[in-house]
């Protein structure tokens, strides 16, 4: 049997139907599609992280620290400051990543789980692990960009961070998630490499650190 005439007939017939359908535009904007995926990813990531934490806790008989152990913090350095506000939110201002271990400790005391690294850029492997910060983080870089992503921000190439400021509600940070903040000295950064970056990811996400990392 030779299908070719029928094939052409079917192709033409279906093409006619396709072209006859009323042209439409997406009823859901792309931003909403992206937001849906982020919300779904957050739920799945946290469910997985929660299950993993529960398993570890059961195995080791440990009680993991929670956000309820946060206490008011007021630490001011030239490079950064962390302040607990009367309404429970935390204001974190960053000019330079200095004394990273202390910064990480102070943030933890304020109820903000974070991993801070100076001298290497650290990123969770795979962009899919980014979690939504919608509703509990307000991030304000000194220089703003249109349509700024909600869960990550980076400075590329030589230059200064400028002035980064976060207002974070620790009570709303999902358990099993943390901020990752890392930077390298600006003078030595090649043109297209990352100089400083933060992102919000599951604690269980694998992390890769390197002195130089392409954007």
């Amino acid at each position, binding site marked *: 049997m030779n299908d070719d005439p029928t*094939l052409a007939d079917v192709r033409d017939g279906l093409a006619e139907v396709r072209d006859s359908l009323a042209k439409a535009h997406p009823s859901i904007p792309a931003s909403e599609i992206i937001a849906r995926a982020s919300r779904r990813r957050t739920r799945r990531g946290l469910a997985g992280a929660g299950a993993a934490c529960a398993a570890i806790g059961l195995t080791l008989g440990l009680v993991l620290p929670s956000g309820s152990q946060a206490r008011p913090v007021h630490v001011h350095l030239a490079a950064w400051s962390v302040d607990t506000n009367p309404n429970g939110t935390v204001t974190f201002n960053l000019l330079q990543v200095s004394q990273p271990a202390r910064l990480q400790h102070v943030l933890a005391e304020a109820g903000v789980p974070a991993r801070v690294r100076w001298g290497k850029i650290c990123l969770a492997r795979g962009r899919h692990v980014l979690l939504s910060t919608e509703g509990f983080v307000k991030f304000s870089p000194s220089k703003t960009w249109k349509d700024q992503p909600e869960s990550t921000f980076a400075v590329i190439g030589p230059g200064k961070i400028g002035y980064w400021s976060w207002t974070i509600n620790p009570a709303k940070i999902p358990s099993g998630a943390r901020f990752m903040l890392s930077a390298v000295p600006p003078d030595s950064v090649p043109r297209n490499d990352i100089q400083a970056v933060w992102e919000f990811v599951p604690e269980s996400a694998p992390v890769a650190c390197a002195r130089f990392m392409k954007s």
Partner: protein
Amino acid sequence: MRVYGVEQDRHEFAEFYAAAWDDCLRIVMISVGDRALSEDLVAEVFTKAWASWPKVRGLAEPRAWIIRSALNAHVSWWRRHRREVALGSHDATATTSQDPGLDSSLVAALRRLPVRQRQVIALRLLLDLDTATTAEMLGMSGSTVRSHLHRAVAALRRDIPARNDQEIAQ
């Protein structure tokens, strides 16, 4: 200084979404038969596409991934809802569209085909992909694509006697 690559990904995805949505919806509608359900399926699949964007954007034909996934999602949807369907063919019950073209005998015959044959028809004839790309997108060999296409066209030929007669008359 510039914003990190996630923002670039969002921009790329938004462009792809705007450019591909209408094509994908039309093809899914032909196979599914209902505009509202097709829009839901396509939206769901675009959401999955964004979640796997690094993978999807690297494919030979991302639109084909959307269409294939939407048709698979339709099968899953039907499996979940089949108890709610009063009579035999889910395809027959789904033709409630406001688009007259979707009620043609050719489209009705297409909807009676097995899903793999419908996927091959959608990618080969409606998206106009070649056999190799269709095979890659559907995860089957080229000969399997040709076989599905042959069977699908044979079934459509049987189901559309009027068109067949017209063809013979030429």
